[in-house]
């Protein structure tokens, strides 16, 4: 369960977050849609406890990440907007590192490692160094390290960027599987089809505010459009920042 309430944040004179509130429930995939610069990444960074908001709270399973970020972060797995692997470590070492950062040790760590490696079907690359991995393989390793401590919540910031069709489909299956397990999944994206196909709930963000909330279906009906893309444009009032 993820929740942000009445976030306000300025960068100099620019109002990045303007009383932004939304929530993502367990057992659902929630999408954040918004043009570039709408405040998606800023909102997520506040939720991680990386940035301080001037007002409002970011709750992860009820723990305020603004007050106790380290405690709150234990309950999330993060797929960041820019990610880099440690090229000189093997995939297994990389995932083990993050397991260790979340406090797993000894047998529990080994078991968690083996589970996540078999679940994501990366046993064949697990003991290879990350240099030379394809984008799809990298994506799987990042997902594996985000899930190794079995967090209740998974946050993905534009996860499909740079992925080919096959990798995107794999990612989609992983997310649907996690949803079946009752996890809470929040992801931001520019890609309308993906959001339409996956999300139970869509939050449209523009100018640091929530422009609309609902299922993809509801958003289309509310704006009288047949495609989510058209609905999105109608909601934010421009076609800026949309990827096909």
């Amino acid at each position: 369960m993820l929740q942000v309430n009445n976030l306000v944040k300025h960068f100099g004179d620019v109002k990045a977050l303007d009383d932004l509130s939304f929530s993502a429930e367990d057992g659902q995939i929630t999408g954040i849609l918004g043009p570039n610069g709408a405040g998606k990444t800023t909102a997520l960074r506040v939720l991680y406890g990386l940035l301080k908001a001037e007002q409002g709270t970011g709750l992860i399973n009820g723990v305020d990440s603004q007050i106790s970020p380290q405690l709150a972060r234990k309950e999330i797995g993060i797929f960041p907007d820019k990610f880099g692997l440690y090229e000189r470590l093997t995939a297994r070492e990389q995932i083990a590192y993050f397991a260790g950062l979340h406090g797993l040790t000894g047998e529990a760590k080994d078991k968690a490692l083996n589970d996540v490696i078999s679940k994501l079907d990366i046993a064949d690359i697990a003991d290879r160094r990350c240099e030379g991995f394809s984008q799809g393989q990298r994506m799987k390793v990042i997902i594996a390290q985000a899930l190794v401590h079995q967090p209740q919540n998974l946050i993905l910031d534009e996860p499909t960027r740079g992925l080919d069709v096959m990798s995107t489909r794999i990612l989609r299956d992983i997310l649907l599987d996690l949803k079946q397990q009752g996890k809470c999944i929040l992801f931001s994206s520019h890609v309308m089809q993906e959001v339409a196909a996956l999300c139970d709930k869509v939050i449209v963000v523009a100018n640091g505010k929530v422009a609309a909330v609902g299922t993809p279906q509801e958003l289309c009906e509310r704006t009288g459009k047949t495609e989510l893309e058209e609905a999105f444009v109608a909601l934010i009032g421009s076609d800026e920042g949309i990827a096909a």
Partner: protein
Amino acid sequence: MIKTLFTKEFLDSIRDKRSVFAALLGAFLPPIMFAVMMTFVLEESTSVDELYITIENQQQAPHIVELLEQGKILHADMPEKGKDFELDGETVEHSKITITFEDSFAEKMHRGEKATITLLTDYSKKGARDEVWRVKNVINSYQSQLVAMKLVARGVSPSLLSAIHIEENDTSTPSSKSALLLGMLGVMIMVAVFVSSTNVAIDCSAGERERNSLELLIMQPVSTMQVVLAKTMNTAFFGIVGATLSVVFTAIAIPFIPLHKAGMAFNFDFQLGMTIWLLLVPLALFAAAFQLATAFHAKSFKEAQSYIQYTVMVPIIVPMMLEIVNYKNEVLSYIPIFAQQQAISQLIRGELDSYMPLLAGSVVTVITSLVIIKVIANSLKSEKVVLGL
């Protein structure tokens, strides 16, 4: 937690060929530089160059010619032009000195009359006096031997000739002669600590930022203090490895360098090596914190390299200058880098009175390093850094 962080940092660095080579370079640098410097100094002080002069009428005094040859003063014909001439395919310089034995030299010597040698040279030529002195020295010593033998033959003690004996004593002790060079060795071992850890420092800060893995790391449930501590420990570890190897290599190399030829005496024993090494441990921590503080400000590896190449001047150039002018001051013993320079310099020169300043300097260095680590940890929490990721 620190163990997890440190293990990963160490694994990451030890697999980085550049980091490992840099550490080895740092380790090998001091003994190699020292050996090169020593070789140069030894050549200067021990080798006597051949002096080429023109000797006319050699047959008149074969003994003197032989003695001159033993003193590496050799005959060569005066070159027609300039002062250089060919000898066995090499170009050598002629001193432009000519000595001529008069035609009746041998006969006059035989009869015990005063024989004449004419010495012809241009005294305005640079170094001419030294060259003439060498030639005269040989002839004079031949003469005094000859006179002594003549006196003995007439039943007179040759000691009558010298009423006063000048005893020459060189007050420059072997240790003080070598002090500057050995002091430089100390500075170079200190430099090794920095050189060995620079690459690791850049790689795990600016490098990690450049490769986009730093952001994800600080989003994890770890404090930035833990992250910075682990990185500093790893960086310092490489510095210490570099320092250890360079102390060991120096200890191994010194007995092979013929220091006594240059009138030097220096005993790099186990106790000295150990004391220097112990001084270098806090320095390695400081070097790590100092370089990380610089590199964390950079967004890319290259940017960090260009920053560090300037900031690292301070810990290299300043101790070197202090060493050259042999500046000593109480206060310096309580400033990181200088504390180590002063201590190592005094240790090597054998001037150390008490171990207190060493201990105090080390404590100050460790405290300063911890303060820098705290500052870096705080800066990683700042919005400017987060947004720059």
